[in-house]
């Protein structure tokens, strides 16, 4: 169907080099990837799903330029010698990068050669019922509702929802009818110590004056589910103007007079369209060749990107403080309650609860506030060929918010930047089932748990790569609430995200990688030390008995000088096997050494 033969003599241009540095190589198209192998055999793989745009530029003397922009912010610039080939590649990529239906996505063909039970186990790794239990619900104030068991009142919500015990079914149903897309107020996070909750919903259909008794009751029920319930906050995460404009369409925001004891608050995060164009502007600036400092800074300012990130974080801080400082419950919404609401609820929880700052906890957080509550990953990431106006970097902003927190609190997170980047990679890769579709109902219909793999066990398997060597658990417990400083100068351009693939811009030596390796090595050294210590003990005991063995004349130290340290994967096994022999001899004389040496025997018996 596509290009049958590889295209040779293709040039890959360094997009920031002013002298147009380039590599020459061969370009291949596979069913899932574009592959470029340069003359030094270095491979560049680009997943078709990652391609955001392909552009064919005007023919030059050296060939036909083809620019590919990826969703993970990689930009490659090829020059194809023959225009005809370029045209073919262009057309193939256009098709390949815009799948029309879900079954064309990589996840349905991806096969990591794992057996079925392991695949299923993978899907069970994150269990949200377990997570709500961890938070402390159900309890005397909150219960699991079966109102949406068959998605009958809200299609974009999960089946299992937690609501106040005092909210009866008619109240729930009534409230859901008064909320955009039926997304009525439900529990997102329960703070065990403060007995306060984060709840989320969509905007009320209040128009200019409409009221709904059930909705008012619903909010009251949430309010009194907090034993210290003098008031609760209702956070509308939209700018006031947007919320007011919505009233004309029969939507809007809560009238403080109609709801008992609420404190209503706008926080002014812009909508998905503003965010989309903001990112676009940011990328235009950062992609400019021979950029001056001032054009960079003014471009950064004009894009508004950091302003938006700050707005999201400020909202999350407001939320977290309301709970941690005032013990107040907070209800968060925006328009539909699946973009800004997800950002604010998840970042707020992350500030409040150190569990979400662990690797597993972060997966749970994404699974809960993003996947289960129906953030429209498929639409927002443009996974299928569809309405480009639905695409928006809402989740990317969430990750960037987390990154800013890791910058301010380098010891509070179990995971590192690579973890955030890897997750970002996979919301677009469509390689795993987790982020396909727009809501749980859709995912069930797609039979993702039967046909695809879950990302989380794969990340967990390689978690070594994602561990923060500076992570301090005590620090996390000691510091219950993270209180980041959001003065403007704390916000920085996230180079490692937006220039992930432009290595020339990065520090040439990474402190982080070095410390990570060292921290790994320390673990190995600790083990080596223990084992050597055991061997030494044995050999000392052995010398006491002066057992002489003839065939052990060879030197033990494999490096020959006994001074420099080499990671002794082979070295110490050889050493140990030899000493094991002594061990058995001394064992008869000294049974007590048996215990200390046993672990080594167990470890190395396969060597015999």
């Amino acid at each position, binding site marked *: 169907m596509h290009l049958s033969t590889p295209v040779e003599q293709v040039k890959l241009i360094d997009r920031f080099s002013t002298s147009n540095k380039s590599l020459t190589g061969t370009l291949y198209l596979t069913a899932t990837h574009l592959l470029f192998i340069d003359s030094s055999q270095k491979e560049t793989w680009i997943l078709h799903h990652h391609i955001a745009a392909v552009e064919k530029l005007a023919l030059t003397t050296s060939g036909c330029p083809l620019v590919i922009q990826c969703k993970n912010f990689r930009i490659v610039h090829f020059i194809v010698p023959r225009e005809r080939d370029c045209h073919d590649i262009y057309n193939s990529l256009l098709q390949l990068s815009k799948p029309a239906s879900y079954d064309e996505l990589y996840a349905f063909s991806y096969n990591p050669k794992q057996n079925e039970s392991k695949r299923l186990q993978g899907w069970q790794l994150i269990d949200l019922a377990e997570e709500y239990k961890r938070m402390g619900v159900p309890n005397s104030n909150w219960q699991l509702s079966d109102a949406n068991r068959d998605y009958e009142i809200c299609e974009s919500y999960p089946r299992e929802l937690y609501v106040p015990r005092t909210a009866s079914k008619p109240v729930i149903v009534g409230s859901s009818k008064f909320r955009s897309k039926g997304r009525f107020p439900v529990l997102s996070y329960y703070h065990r110590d403060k007995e306060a909750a984060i709840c989320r919903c969509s905007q009320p259909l209040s128009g200019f004056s409409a009221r709904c008794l059930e909705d008012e009751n619903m909010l009251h029920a949430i309010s009194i589910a907090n034993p210290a319930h003098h008031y609760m906050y209702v956070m509308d995460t939209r700018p006031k103007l947007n919320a007011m404009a919505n009233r004309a369409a029969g939507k809007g925001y809560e009238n403080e007079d109609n709801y008992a004891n609420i404190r209503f608050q706008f926080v002014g995060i812009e909508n998905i369209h503003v965010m989309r164009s903001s990112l676009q502007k940011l990328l235009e600036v950062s992609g400019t060749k021979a950029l001056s400092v001032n054009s960079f*800074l*003014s471009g950064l300012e004009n894009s508004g990107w950091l302003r938006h990130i700050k707005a999201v974080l400020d909202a999350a801080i407001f939320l977290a403080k309301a709970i941690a400082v005032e013990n107040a419950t907070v209800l968060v919404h925006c328009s539909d309650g699946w973009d800004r609401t997800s950002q604010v609820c998840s970042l707020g929880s992350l500030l409040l609860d150190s569990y979400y700052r662990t690797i597993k906890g972060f997966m749970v957080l994404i699974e809960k506030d993003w996947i289960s509550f129906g953030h429209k990953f498929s639409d927002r990431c443009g996974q299928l060929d569809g309405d480009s106006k639905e695409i928006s970097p809402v989740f990317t902003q969430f990750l960037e918010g987390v990154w800013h927190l890791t910058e301010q609190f380098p010891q509070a997170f179990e995971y590192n930047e690579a973890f955030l980047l890897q997750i970002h990679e996979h919301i677009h890769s469509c390689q795993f089932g987790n982020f396909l579709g727009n809501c749980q109902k859709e995912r069930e219909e797609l039979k993702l748990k039967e046909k695809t793999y879950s990302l989380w066990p794969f990340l967990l398997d390689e978690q070594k790569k994602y561990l923060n060597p*500076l992570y301090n658990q005590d620090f996390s417990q000691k510091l219950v609430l993270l209180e980041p*400083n959001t003065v403007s100068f704390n916000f920085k351009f996230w180079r490692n995200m937006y220039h992930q693939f432009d290595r020339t811009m990065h520090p040439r030596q990474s402190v982080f990688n070095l410390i990570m390796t060292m921290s790994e090595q320390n673990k190995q050294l600790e083990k080596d030390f223990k084992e050597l210590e055991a061997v030494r003990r044995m050999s000392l005991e052995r010398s006491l008995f002066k057992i002489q063995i003839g065939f052990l004349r060879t030197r033990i130290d494999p490096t020959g000088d006994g*001074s420099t340290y080499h990671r002794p994967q082979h070295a110490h096994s050889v050493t140990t096997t030899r000493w094991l022999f002594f061990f058995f001899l001394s064992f008869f004389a000294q049974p007590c050494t048996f215990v200390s040496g046993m672990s080594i025997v167990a470890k190395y018996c396969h060597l015999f």
Partner: protein
Amino acid sequence: MEFAELIKTPRADNVVLHRPFYPAVEGTLCLTGHHLILSSRRQDNAEELWLLHSNIDAIEKRFVGSLGTIIIKCKDLRIIQLDIPGMEECLNIASSIEALSTLDSVTLMYPFFYRPMFEVVEDGWHSFLPEREFELLSSVTNEWRLSYVNKEFSVCPSYPPAVTVPKSIDDEALRRVATFRHGGRFPVLSYYHKKNGMVMMRSSQPLTGTNGRRCKEDSALINATLRAGKRGYIIDTRSLNVAQQARAKGGGFEQEVQYPQWRRIHKSVERYNILQESLIKLVEACNDQSHNMDRWLSKLEASNWLTHIKEILTAACLAAQCIDREGASVLVHGTEGTDSTLQITSLAQIILDPRCRTIRGFEALVEREWLQAGHPFQQRCAQSAYSNSRQKCESPVFFLFLDCVWQILRQFPCSFEFNEHFLIMLFEHAYASQFGTFLFNNESERSKLKLPQKTMSLWSWVNRPQELSKFKNPLFEANSLVIWPSVAPQSLQLWEGVFLRWNRSSKFLDEAYEEMNNIIEYNKELQAKVNALRRQLAELETDDGMQESS
């Protein structure tokens, strides 16, 4: 003594001190000739403030009823506030501080009164003499000589007594070249690149004037550094336009006809008060926490500070590239050759020479390329970012150099023996210090006032093990390679350790840094333990072997 006249109110009680990150503290304020001291009379003395008057950049007074407030803005960019009861006391103290922080006579400065509380192991005044540096050079090449033509500072008042010049050029020729160069700064050796024998020289502009004056000794001098058939590069730190205008005032640049073996490149680097304005704007932007994002970014942009960083680094990279990649010798100059020239030559050495990335090597670089090379510290660092009483000479030239070094350090965090604190320490001492190192404008002035005899050198203090340990980079691994920094705007950062130092708490960052240190230390300790055990086991084995064969 004179100071007493300036201190009308030597002490005031119930003064409240406000400063960044600490709760307000009440105590007694004392004024001495050189210090402002606040003592809270707490048992542990933890809350005491000792501030050098020379560190004070500007003060402001305010009154509410009889309670006076003095806001003190320091040259290290810190701002503190003193609430002093009693209008008269407050006024007296304010005027004393003002007078004491702007003493006319350098010899009244603290370094002349400071008595060290530590034992001097190595006198820093003798640590980096030109003779020592020349010894190092002679071990690799014999094409250069140390000339004492400037022994009496008569040929060039801003040069040290000994300079390194091509062997083939005699002192008489040097004297003649000096008359052809601005301020007598004839071309001298700045750096010898061992790898390929190429050199970097520095000078001031040639005095060609409008009628194209020439000096054959000048071209002979710089040509003496070229290999047969090879061309060299002249990097002029001014734009072509500025260089041309300089001719009207008697200055100028090397014309191709007279220097056919040299290619001239103009790489404009900002200078003088433009840099000072830039610093003032940047500090103002950093100190206002109420800025929204757009305002902050536009203020950061308007300050142009990072633009200057990029310009300077780009020029330094160019110089380094000519030497290392093109295999050509380089002459760097601007107008006087005491400011932007030194930024370029010293940064190029950081890029090229691994020795400059060690602590001692960096100290030697600061001595050689800044202090002995006659950067006018006294004039440039007289005031920092807050002063309103500006003369024209202040300029954060050295500060920008340190920021550039910090940028390279950020990009090559394992290639430097020193850490950020070392650079911050140098910044502080360049502006206000108990040591004599950064006093005066050149070696001639320093020797006239017998600085080495009358004051303590900063290096005497820094180079003691207990101080050095604070400045060591735990990640350091000697890297013998040339390190090419990225100058893309995305790679340059605001030097938070200096500019945001007093504006936000760095507690969590400091703790993380400490943890990083712990991991490194633990790694060393474990390796040592494991290696020791290995050796022990090897010995046991050998013993066994011997027992066997016996």
